[in-house]
């Protein structure tokens, strides 16, 4: 999609949104915005995709195959945050109906998913008595958490908890960079991206190989993805050493970051428009003659600007021209353009979340209490089209339920709401392929075991 097309699409969406709202009011089916237990009860009663979550969390162990581990789901930790911030950890469920009944009964404001432990986490105290730490995490998806608040120093449109369509693309870029590397570099296939409900995204890597990574290996992957942005007290921000970029960073730069920075971010965030903003960039160039040259030009042409071209683009071209000209023998200076782009666009992961097996992460399809929006999956192949401001809200879904008015079973009710598409995507693009690969993995490890047994019998 070109920039203009995106722009148009944005406009269209806005118009759609307005019209839809206007219609709703007329129809008197309107449900007041907000988030409360009553809304949530209906959501958990009619819309929450228990079956899909159960199938996912079982990883094929709910079948009849002799290699199935029937205790698997029951060793997984779920945590509930109830109304009034009561936090209940170490819940476990051994069947789909147990999970469903408990959620319906307790109506949690938030559901977190933890690791699979060596023993049922609900009975951990009983095992504690036996000494030796038998209660220990044994499997956990490799997870990533990216939060817009970590980008506050590079976005000028919003700060803190707010997001808009000008800064959201930073998340889209993060999804593209990380998703490609998870697949091409690390060879993972079963990856789920989820909108965190307000200002960020979560990623679940679910391949068997990923679930069995040690903490050290998780930390290594997280570090592979980390580009040092410098602490608050260090001078230089991003430092890309060496004579070339590592293939992963090089690919991220040429395929995603560079064009995003130059074609979108530069103008949408007006990165070079004011003195305060361009000084921040000049700070990243370690050569005073160049910075004073640029500063001089930019302070002057503030008056003589022709307004035809975007001033941010013009200034960026000037900066690039000076830094990349053949006169610059200093390799450090030529790297500077890339360093600036990385600083403004490269994904900023919350490292701690990824490094340890026992970190909890909010389950998909939870509803964010502040925004009322559902944590829906994001298709990494079409992440450009994802719009956080049009994600279904709880009140919108209830309205749609009211309007549909059909008293049929849950399945069709879900399909009549705008959540239906998200659940269908979750099922067909994530859960089903995942279960297929789980089955294959189970078969092959089972056959290998049989073979081993046979060999040991016939020596």
């Amino acid at each position, binding site marked *: 999609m070109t920039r203009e097309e995106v722009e148009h699409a944005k406009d269209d969406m806005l118009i759609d949104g307005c019209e839809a709202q206007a219609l709703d009011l007329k129809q008197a089916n309107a449900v007041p915005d907000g988030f409360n237990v009553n809304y949530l009860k209906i959501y958990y009663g009619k819309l929450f995709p228990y079956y899909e979550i159960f199938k996912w969390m079982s990883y094929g162990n709910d079948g009849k195959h002799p290699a199935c581990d029937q205790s698997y789901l029951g060793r997984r930790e779920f945590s509930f945050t109830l109304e009034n911030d009561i936090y209940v950890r170490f819940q476990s469920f051994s069947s789909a109906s147990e999970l469903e009944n408990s959620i319906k009964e307790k109506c949690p404001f938030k559901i977190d998913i933890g690791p699979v432990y060596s023993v049922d986490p609900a009975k951990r105290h009983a095992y504690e008595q036996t000494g030796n730490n038998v209660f220990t995490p044994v499997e956990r998806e490799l997870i990533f958490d990216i939060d817009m608040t970590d980008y*506050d120093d590079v976005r000028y449109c919003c700060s803190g908890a707010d997001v808009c369509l000008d800064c959201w693309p930073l998340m889209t870029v993060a999804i593209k960079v990380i998703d490609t590397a998870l697949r091409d570099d690390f060879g993972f296939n079963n990856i789920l991206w989820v909108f965190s409900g307000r200002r960020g995204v979560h990623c679940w890597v679910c391949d068997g*190989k990923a679930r069995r990574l040690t903490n050290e290996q998780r930390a290594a992957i997280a570090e592979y993805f980390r580009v040092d942005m410098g602490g*608050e007290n260090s001078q230089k921000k991003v430092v890309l050493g060496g004579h070339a970029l*590592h293939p992963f960073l090089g690919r991220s730069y040429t395929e995603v970051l560079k064009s995003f920075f130059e074609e979108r971010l530069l103008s949408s965030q007006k990165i070079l428009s004011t003195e305060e903003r361009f000084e921040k960039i000049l700070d990243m160039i370690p050569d005073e003659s160049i910075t004073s040259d640029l500063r001089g030009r930019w302070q002057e042409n503030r008056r003589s600007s022709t307004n035809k071209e975007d001033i941010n683009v013009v200034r960026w071209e000037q900066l690039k021209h000076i830094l990349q000209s053949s006169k610059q023998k200093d390799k450090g200076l030529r790297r500077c353009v890339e360093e600036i782009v990385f600083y403004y666009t490269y994904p*900023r992961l919350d490292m701690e979340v990824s490094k340890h097996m026992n970190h909890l992460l909010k389950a998909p399809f939870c509803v964010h209490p502040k925004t009322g929006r559902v944590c829906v999956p994001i298709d990494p192949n079409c992440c450009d089209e994802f719009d956080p401001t049009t994600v279904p809200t709880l009140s919108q879904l209830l309205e749609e339920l009211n309007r549909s008015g059909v008293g049929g079973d849950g399945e069709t009710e879900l399909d009549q709401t705008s959540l239906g598409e998200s659940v269908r995507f979750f099922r067909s693009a994530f859960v089903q392929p995942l279960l297929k690969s789980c089955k294959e993995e189970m078969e092959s490890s089972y056959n290998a075991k049989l073979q081993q047994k046979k060999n040991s019998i016939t020596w």
Partner: protein
Amino acid sequence: MEIVRSQRKSPLPIVVSTIPLYRSTPELEVRLEDFELFAVDRLRVLQGISHGLSRAKKPEEMEKLVSDLWKAHMRHPLASEVINKDIISHFVLRLVYCRTEDLRKWFLAMESTLFRYRFRSESFEAQRALLAEFDLPYKAVSIAEFESVKEKLLQVARSLGQPQTSVDVLFYKVPFEEVPELVAGRRVYIQKGHAYIAMNQVVSLVVTQFRSHLSKALILTNRKWTSTIREQEKDRLTPIVEALSTSYLGPDCSQPKEYAEISLKDIDQVAKRSFPLCMHHLFEKLREDHHLKYGGRMQLGLFLKGVGLKLDDALAFWKAEFSIKVGPERFDKEYAYSIRHSFGKEGKRVDYTPYSCQKVISSTPGVGDHHGCPYRHFSEENLRASLSKMGVSNRAMEDVMEKVRNKHYQLACTLTFEAIHGSSCDSGINHPNQYFAESRKILLPKNNSAA
């Protein structure tokens, strides 16, 4: 017979490495004095390594340090006994350091580092021989495959600032899980889950193997120790083993010392006079911004705990600041848990210990972070400003900056301590809580006499 024939066929002389892998307990007779003496010698090596690591020495410097330490302490008058001394001392220290999680962690880290640099110093042939001893299922990359990824391998070499010729060496293809440190440093090309490692990177592969083997072995040793050895040897080895670990562990900073016990009302005073710069900076930032990110909360929080701040006071302290920024409700909801957690009152109920200098120095503060070691992580300008605010004179400042330039961060901190307190600190600074304790030792008696 097989072995002899294959030896004859081989055109190269068989190279045997002198580094043992410590796979099984040796069948050796050891005199009781040697049992202890050998262990003490090896401990000196491991402690030297620990010092080197905390100064963030470069690999080349570490290699030299390890080689010097080894020569200084691990020699034996009888050439034939050198390898036995190596093996015996290792197994004695296994007994000493198997007994708690913290001891195991330290020993594992130091022995792995020792192994790494000894391996690096070996000849290419000896390295290959050692690699073969590990019996790993990985083969060298074929020429056809090598050609298909050559460009990428070149790119990795360039990104590391290595000469292009280094790409012509032998490569191995291994699952990325086997070489976490190479993955973490982006020092290998990774494709579809496989890392291409150059011969000179094989050290990472073998160290990972060495580590994981030793880690499992330490757990087993611990089990044997608690179930049988301790009782059986209670008149002979047990006293030696127990004495060895206590005399060489350095100060225990998990428990507040006699001078500690600070209360909320004089915390500002105390922070100003007795906190090391890394903690004082966090403390000031917290007062200023009413917020600290995770890394800063952990570093300062555990330090304050070590200094003797009680859980209730800690909660009140953090709440007072955070409430200004996020409101008391959000504090209770999002932050109080982790504070109780670090006091061992939630979750796994592990009582976390304050960070040592080594841990602080090796942290990697990012955007918005204020933790880490100022001597390592601050720009020169910021560091100078902070030091003069602490009252370090210009002359002392130059000495501090000199140490910083040579990456002797702990020595820089020691000099700062001496400049501020006007008194020498012979033991050097190894732990922020030790800095605090030393400072109170100097300041408190004066206060008392004045009162």
